[in-house]
């Protein structure tokens, strides 16, 4: 998708009688769809990766039949299976809420990718680098909580309700340290624009290498793991306690939407960590997009590693960890960053 293609498409649309602004809107829509397709394909890879990594950690083999020796097509087969499954809606469910909930979780999980700078020119050329990029992320990623609550309530199932209650409590609590960790970066870069944040890190001055921001990164990672419901913070769907939490009653493609949203969100947490702390696409020799993916996958693998090693916390422990430790720590990080910026040490 070079600049040439963009010009050709725009030219084509304009000569066919569309005003220039509609033409560029159509182009951006196409690009947004491309991002979404890319994210969905990535999710398929992530699910496979998670299976392989967990298998390695647990001294198992993992998928090894479907699609060659390494089971590469296993997730494809699973996705097909889910598509063909009967779609059941419980008799006593609140139908509208029940049907709407997966989409409310799924759509925001994809929307946030519109501000991820996959390459140096990606946002500027093909999409738009929002002035309030970070704020957009914060706002949109707060939305799925509503969907989770709707899923739990609409299912009319006690396990689902308990799971939804946990999801809301946890999601809200960890959003605060997550946002404060992002604020550290915003303060350091002096801008909410993703392009500026990356620009401030160019030349190897990644934010992870500058003092108070390591603290912000650790907080971001922990809070991010809680946001995507990974062990030790997987309480909303705690299998051994709540069967499957808020999506207990979902089946088929509706279930798959929750699943996709969760992995897309995981990918986003890692991708945004790369953007905020690891200089996004910057790196020697290899093309920018490759560097971006390498860094993102490294963080994803770290998260998976943690997920398959530690047990789960209890709900009150999760909450007190957020409020008694992470929130004060993130406030401290913001203060330290502010001091460092004012005295020019950052």
């Amino acid at each position: 998708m070079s600049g040439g293609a963009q010009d050709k498409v725009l030219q084509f649309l304009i000569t066919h009688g569309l005003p220039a602004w509609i033409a560029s809107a159509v182009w951006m829509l196409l690009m947004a769809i491309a991002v979404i397709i890319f994210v969905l394909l990535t999710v398929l890879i992530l699910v496979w990766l998670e299976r392989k990594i967990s298998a390695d950690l647990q001294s198992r083999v993992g998928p090894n039949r479907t699609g060659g020796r390494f089971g590469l097509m296993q997730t494809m087969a699973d996705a097909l299976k889910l598509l063909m499954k009967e779609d059941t809606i419980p008799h006593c469910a609140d139908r509208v809420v029940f049907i709407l909930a997966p989409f409310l979780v799924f759509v925001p999980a994809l929307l946030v990718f519109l501000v991820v700078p996959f390459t140096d020119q990606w946002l500027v050329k093909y999409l738009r680098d929002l002035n309030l990029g970070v704020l957009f992320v914060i706002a949109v990623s707060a939305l799925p909580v509503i969907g989770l609550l709707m899923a739990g309530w609409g299912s009319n199932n006690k396990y689902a309700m308990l799971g939804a209650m946990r999801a809301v409590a946890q999601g809200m609590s960890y959003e605060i340290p997550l946002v404060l960790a992002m604020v550290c970066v915003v303060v350091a870069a002096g801008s909410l624009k993703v392009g500026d944040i990356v620009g401030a890190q160019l030349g190897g001055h990644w934010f992870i290498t500058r003092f108070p921001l390591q603290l912000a990164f650790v907080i971001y990672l922990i809070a991010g793991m809680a946001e995507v419901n990974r062990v030790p913070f997987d309480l909303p769907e705690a299998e051994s306690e709540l069967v499957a939490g808020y999506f207990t009653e979902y089946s088929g493609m509706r279930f798959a939407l929750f699943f996709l949203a969760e992995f897309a969100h995981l990918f986003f947490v890692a991708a945004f960590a790369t953007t905020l702390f690891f200089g996004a696409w910057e790196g020697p020799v290899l093309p920018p997009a490759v560097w971006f993916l390498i860094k993102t996958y490294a963080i994803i693998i770290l998260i998976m590693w943690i997920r398959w090693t530690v047990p789960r916390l209890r709900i009150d422990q999760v909450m007190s960890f957020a409020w008694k430790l992470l929130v004060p720590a993130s406030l401290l990080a913001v203060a330290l960053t502010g001091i460092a910026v004012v005295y020019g040490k950052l």
Partner: protein
Amino acid sequence: MLQQSILTEHVTLNMGPQHPSTHGVLRLELTLEGEVVVDCRPVIGYLHRGVEKIGEARTYPQFLPYTDRLDYLSSASNNAAYVLAVEKLMGLEVPERAKYLRVIALELNRIASHLVFLATFGNDLAATTAFLYAIRERELIMDLFEMWVGARLTQSTFKLGGVSDDVPEGFVQQARDFCRLLPGRVDEYDRLLTGNRIFEARTRGVGLLPPEVALDYACSGPTLRGSGVAFDLRRAAPYEMYDRLDFDVVTHSSCDCLGRYLVRMQEMRQSVRILQQCLDQLPEGEVRAKVGRVVKPPAGEAYGRVESPRGEFGCYVVSDGGTSPRRVRLRAPSFFHLAVLPQMLRGWKVGDVVAILGSIDIVLGEVDR
């Protein structure tokens, strides 16, 4: 003020009989206030097969395989309780080699059962990796039994008057290899779970079972020893040749989930000690005393009790001199542990329910009989 104006209701949650962590078909009727357990009522009977009644309609040797299916994670201890009771009735003396082989079977079963405990306990706390590690080692024990008697789970190693088969060539060596391997693997579990801060946060001080309560409810096994009471039938009322073996009765005084967990972890090490002694001292000779085709114990009654991995497993057999028992009564330790469960659960959260339930390590096969 606000508290008074909002009306809250208790929620009744049926946990089970189909649930990922009720360890079989157990139903817990939980009364919840938010996440907090107000009350709990264990509902049992989903696996009732009428085993005790079946015992009255089968001959003495025929009933033996039924006992395998009680506590299916440790079939040898069920066998042992029944066989001990019947042998007591018959006044049968078991050959020395058979006694050693029986202890080997019992201790291998104990390790296997504790490994399953570790696996499911880890799984309940979402430490799925511990699950697979423990199952990996259990597989080696299953292989040993497959080599010995052909069966892996319901082994029926015991027979009236001895054991079903002598161990094949190579068994002793393979068992020794296993004994060498296991302590290192238990260290590995310790590194993965025992020292983990999250694991400790989930288990320390959770699900307290004071020793008095444990004794009142006739708890036994690791559940009782986790409350600091040093009661182990292998020491208190030795059977087979446990009196000649050197091992420690492990106790832990913390009375919580962590204590019960640590007791089982230590018991695996002690079982390895016992196994090594048995394998070293294993005498030559017969493995089965002469028992006629028709077993007709004289009229009377006898009680066989063994220390199963879960506690005191007892079998009470009444004979009227015929070919089948007049009455078979089974004492299953898990049954008593389920009775005390509501006391342990009250005031804890839903997340703790699975931890506490996992820590008493019940098997529904013996609860429902």
